């Protein structure tokens, strides 16, 4: 099966990057000036306790041995123990993964829902009034800081209109949908302009492509052409843009989660940084990078599948 070979090849290519990210995550705890264990224990530690933790974290071993151990443990999913929360990092991170993934998926969905109709409209009315308005709105939307737009949404839809809750994750699926609407919208307002821009360009390219001209010559209606050829051709750039921007979405979610008090990975990161919980910071660094790599891999596979299907069609 070509698809397995494809995925296998991609995974092989990812190996140096994977090693790189483990190195960065590993170094996160070792580049801290001073004794990280003392900082972690916030000065309330006796020498015995410091020595014990040093031994437990293996910080008394040579650096290379430590790195080997770290990678070895990370492979089996053991990311150490949180100093502040006193629980395995892998467990804490897994718990926080759900709200964050929900938020990211929700934001992606909202931005696609926002972007596709607007991009179609803009492409159809190229260089006309609607196109310009959509582009300007996109530019403004792109320049809005997420923490600011989040606060505006809180003020407008939360505090004033009281339509949506302004914090938390909620209970049950519909609770999540209701609670995460404003946070997801905040991320979508940043992402949608990027999507619109490349979708529009891709559709304009597709509209002038040969087979479309042929279809047009055959007398197919513009609407038919739009849905049959153009939108399908634009699918790949959408997937690519979403994948390329997963890093920015995650970055955005860090701030958005703080603004809306969503107990996800981003809030965990900010909290871990302010309490200097290095094992958690280390684990999160790894998980975030894996998320980005994973999403990119998925996107590659999706693109390959779409591409093959388009070509076979």
């Amino acid at each position: 099966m070509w698809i397995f070979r494809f995925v296998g090849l991609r995974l092989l290519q990812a190996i140096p990057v994977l090693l790189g990210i483990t190195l960065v995550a590993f170094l996160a705890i070792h580049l801290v000036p001073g004794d990280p264990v003392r900082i972690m224990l916030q000065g309330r530690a006796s020498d015995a306790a410091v020595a014990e933790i040093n031994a437990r974290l293996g910080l008394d071993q040579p650096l290379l041995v430590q790195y080997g151990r770290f990678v070895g443990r990370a492979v089996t999913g053991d990311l150490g123990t949180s100093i502040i929360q006193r629980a395995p990092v892998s467990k804490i991170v897994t718990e926080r993964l759900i709200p964050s993934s929900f938020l990211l998926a929700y934001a992606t969905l909202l931005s696609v829902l926002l972007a596709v109709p607007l991009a179609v409209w803009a492409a159809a009315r190229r260089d006309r009034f609607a196109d310009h308005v959509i582009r300007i709105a996109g530019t403004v939307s792109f320049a809005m800081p997420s923490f600011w737009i989040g606060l505006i949404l809180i003020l407008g839809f939360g505090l004033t209109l009281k339509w949506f809750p302004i914090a938390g994750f909620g209970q049950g699926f519909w609770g999540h949908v209701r609670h995460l609407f404003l946070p997801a919208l905040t991320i979508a307002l940043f992402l949608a302009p990027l999507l619109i821009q490349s979708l529009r360009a891709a559709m304009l390219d597709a509209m002038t492509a040969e087979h479309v001209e042929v279809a047009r010559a055959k007398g197919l209606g513009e609407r038919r052409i739009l849905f049959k050829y153009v939108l399908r051709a634009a699918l790949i750039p959408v997937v690519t843009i979403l994948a390329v921007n997963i890093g920015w979405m995650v970055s955005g979610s860090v701030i958005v989660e703080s603004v809306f008090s969503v107990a996800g990975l981003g809030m965990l990161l900010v909290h871990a940084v302010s309490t200097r919980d290095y094992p958690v910071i280390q684990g999160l660094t790894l998980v975030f990078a894996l998320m980005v790599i994973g999403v990119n891999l998925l996107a590659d596979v999706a693109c390959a599948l779409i591409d093959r299907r388009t070509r076979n069609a």
Partner: protein
Amino acid sequence: MSMNDQVGVDMSTRARRALASALAATFVVSLAGCSKEEPAAPQTSAEPAKAEAPAGPKRGGTLIFARPEEPATFDPYLPSDNGSIYAIEQVCDSLVEPDATGEGLRPGLAESWDVSEDKLVYTFKLRDTKFSNGDPVTADDVLFSLKKASAEAAPLGFLFEPIKSVEAPDAATIKITLKQPYAPVLSALSAYGAAIVSKKAYEAGPEAFGQQPVCAGPFTVEEYSRGTRVVLAKAPDYWEKGQDGQSLPYVDKVEIRYIADSNARVLGLKNGDLDAIAIVPFNQAESLKELPELKLEEAPIFRLDYVYLNHKAKPLDKKELRLAMNYAADREAILKVVFFGYGKIPNSYMPKVNFHSDAVESIPYDIAKAKELVKAAGYKGQTIKLMVDTGNAPSKQIATILQQGWTEAGMKVEIVEFDVGTAFDMSSKGNYMAYVSYITSDINDTDELATLQADGRGSSKSFFSNYRNDEVGKMLDEARQESDPAKRAELYAKVQDTVYHDGYSVPLNFSPALNAYHGYVEGWKTANNGWWWLKDVIRNK
């Protein structure tokens, strides 16, 4: 990340450490000598909802309560953060418990106790009660728990350092022998860190215990979702009885939600999604007062917000300069714009506990006088680094206000930010100049904090200030040995006057805790130690 909330964050770390060091440093017995200490009958059971109709309090229901911090663990021998401690207080009891106000003690899992003539042996009679898993509370569990509590690695371990041995002569008796007389031992035993746990459950796995504790307190943990909420359920047969003669708590369940954002907490309360919230930001208190269905609790707690000064860091070694900082501190402005009028401008270097004197004259805001003092101090334009906690908006505001006044008086001031942990660590190592922070006390006795903060001979170096005045030390010794309360009060007033006017620190505000709840929530009470007694709360709806 909400800013105002952080006023309360980490309070307990400090409080505990303050208390702990104080207790460790105080060996002199201040209790009047009597061999049998039968504590006053528990008043708590009769206390809630006294005004209620004689029909008896309403039972049942789920109280939904939001607070900004979450517990890190329910293992009582690990944490030193508010989030954990306040939650553990709802779930685990100790041999001795603080009373409803937090000012005194009452029996906990020990029904009563005797103290030997020489004050070296404390004998506790265990209450016949059960853990949440149905096992009886035995002397064996107590021995195990106290051993965990006094381990060196335990955050409050050193509190139990003066204990020589703990023995169980029989299944219902615990005998604690001290190395030397140590009056605060009962307070120490009432702390969260001395909670009694089920040995069997704890040994089965401390990590699982941290998630699902087995204690003998009023509540059990039904659900613990990190970052979201904890659901507490009424323990089956809690030993303490309510005013209707049945076991406390009154409510069936308490859902504690963690909402860091203060706007979200206040909105949730107003919407009716929440029954009660902890830590109302000062700037929103007025808007809550206007709503007739809500009640705002302004609870006095043992707390003083002040700027720590390091007397060893030049140029702060000059008393004149420290006084100049006091004269140029616009406390009226701080009380108005940061605390929105809540609190009182202090006339002391420590929180308002029992021997506080109102007679000590406070230092007024006087820039002209401050300028004179700056000159007298021989100040040569060195930069004064004023440290604040990252993300703590009120502290930042305070620092900004102070900076303006101090600059006007001729000083050069720079505001530096560090995260709470690092900042406190730096101050405890004496690696700082000035730090906007606070201190709290768990005990209503001036001796503890006075010793901790002002007695330069102690190990905390006068609570990291490096303040030393031997006259003060002498007065403190005298006060400790004095049995006449009037004379003690006189001595402490003198200490207060001396230390305060030595420019020990820059005191800012005696600030209260603000909590809010709906009118149907009855019996709500915040102890002076900062937590709330959820077992006494009635949800009358």
